[in-house]
């Protein structure tokens, strides 16, 4: 992918609509003047596009905050609920992502993968003894880690369709076939966007390395959560390959992937919660 295409991609994403259920909920909730604030916040926190829109605003140079903010809740405290609500409404007014697109990429299945990866990532961060803030940030990392795929499906569906098909047929990791057909993989595209939007280094690095070698415990939790979600077939973000834990990650949790899944107990409630949120 050329650098001019990078710039074009960033511009296109500005107009990207949110997921169908959250658009529907935002419209429904905001038509009620007495809407519960926590319901609005929950809708935003469970939609990658809405979350990105809010984080982009709060982390913009305009606010000059010394510390990056990864939390929608914290953004609400800083710029006010009504402003956040109106930002969400402006995204909702752009329409909604289609569930099926020319790339044959299901938005619903994707969102189930993103939400369960988010929940598992937070659980692993707690298990790894990360700070309260990092635990909550790890949910955001899970939600946003595959953002690049939604962008591919929306803006370069034909090339992404070929990458998805080859990945499925040859059982090759999707990020490799993306490189072949698009010239950039979703981790790189997500990193590029996260940098452009001024998200925190913690999130940027976790997104960058979620198929490589994570650089810290935070990234390792995301890597592991992604594999666990795929192994348990919670949703589907198009990649059939479950990667074994690299040594550092196995060391972090003191066991390999299958043993960790066993040790975490029944996680199906996470899928159920995500389904409740996603299904129209």
């Amino acid at each position, binding site marked *: 992918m050329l650098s001019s295409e990078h710039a074009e991609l960033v511009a296109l994403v500005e107009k990207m609509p949110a997921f169908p259920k959250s658009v529907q909920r935002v419209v429904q909730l905001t038509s009620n003047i007495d809407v*519960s*604030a*926590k319901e609005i*916040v929950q809708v935003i926190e469970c939609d990658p596009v809405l979350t990105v829109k809010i984080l982009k*605003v709060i982390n*913009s140079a*305009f*606010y*000059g905050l010394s510390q990056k903010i990864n*939390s929608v*809740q*914290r953004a*609400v*405290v*800083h*710029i*006010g*609920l*009504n*402003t956040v609500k*109106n*930002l969400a409404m*402006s995204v909702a007014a752009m329409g909604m992502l289609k569930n099926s697109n020319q790339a044959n990429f299901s938005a619903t299945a994707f969102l189930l993968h993103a939400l369960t990866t988010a929940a598992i990532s937070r659980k692993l961060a707690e298990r790894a003894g990360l700070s*309260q803030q990092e635990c*909550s940030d790890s949910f955001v990392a899970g939600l946003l880690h595959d953002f690049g795929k939604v962008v591919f499906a929306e803006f370069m569906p034909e090339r992404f369709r070929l990458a998805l098909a080859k990945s499925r047929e040859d059982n090759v990791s999707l990020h490799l076939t993306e490189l072949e057909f698009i010239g950039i993989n979703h981790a790189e595209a997500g990193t590029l966007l996260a940098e452009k939007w001024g998200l925190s280094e913690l999130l940027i690095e976790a997104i960058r390395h979620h198929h490589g070698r994570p650089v810290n415990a935070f990234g390792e939790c995301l890597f592991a959560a992604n594999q666990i979600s795929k192994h348990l077939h919670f949703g589907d973000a198009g990649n059939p390959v479950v990667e074994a834990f690299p040594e550092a990650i196995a060391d972090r949790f003191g066991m390999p992937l299958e043993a960790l899944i066993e040790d975490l107990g029944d996680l199906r409630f996470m899928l159920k919660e995500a389904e409740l949120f996603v299904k129209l």
Partner: protein
Amino acid sequence: MKFKFWGVRGSIPTPGPQTVKYGGNTTCIEIRTNRNELIILDAGTGIHALAQTLLRDMPITAHIFITHTHWDHIQGLPFFLPIFFKNNRINLYGGQDPVTDENINRALSAQLQYSYFPIHEAQLKARIDYLTVRPGETVSVGSARITPIILNHPVLNFGYRVDCDGASLFFTGDFESPINIYQPEDDNYASYRGFLLEKHQEIIEAMQDVDALIVDSSYTDEEYATRLGWGHGTYRSGIKLASEANAKRLFLTHHEPTRTDADLDLIYRDLLEQHPRFADKLFIAREGLEVCF
């Protein structure tokens, strides 16, 4: 430094026999530095009477800082007469709205549209400059330093701290202290509380030790119970802010539009009774009230 109230009413102008003492114009505060530099906080309808006093001194330079773009804080802008005379310089300061990405020039140009006003923006004769301010970034105006901070309201709202001539003033614009959106039994309650405390601390630091704290105190506690989230403070919340920030004088403003002179007199008497510590430093803002430091 000295300042004077030209408008103290919230929401809508309320002229009439019931508001003669405190006044019915919406928000406008004039500040003069010792070097006679002119700073104006908000351009509610009170700015019209202020403008009358400036005509004899033209050409003038005025620095108008807008807290937020709700009508009662900008409605007087087209009636700020110096904009119609050449050689006047008007600097209009305000924020960039995160939802619309619009800057403060929109507040004036929107009002000067054909349907709403007979004179078009291009026909104004004064030199008008629009300046976007950012939270935490101090702006120098002559000998004064003005620092904005975002305060909670249903639209982007800046509180402004003005430091000048060894004195200081803080005006909240419209402000409701944000509340926890979660219930104590919710998982997010504690972390949200932490975010609120952090923001509150930032606000108190911005107001710390000011000579005059001017706060939105629209409601009584009883009224506030049914107006949560409307974006305004109470008499109680104003006094709490002044105590925590160690403000030397507290001015309660943005009077609720149905509040009569008699109501405000009664409220003032009760507040002084309930807060004897504030006996010599608590004031109800009224049009024409001038304070020198």
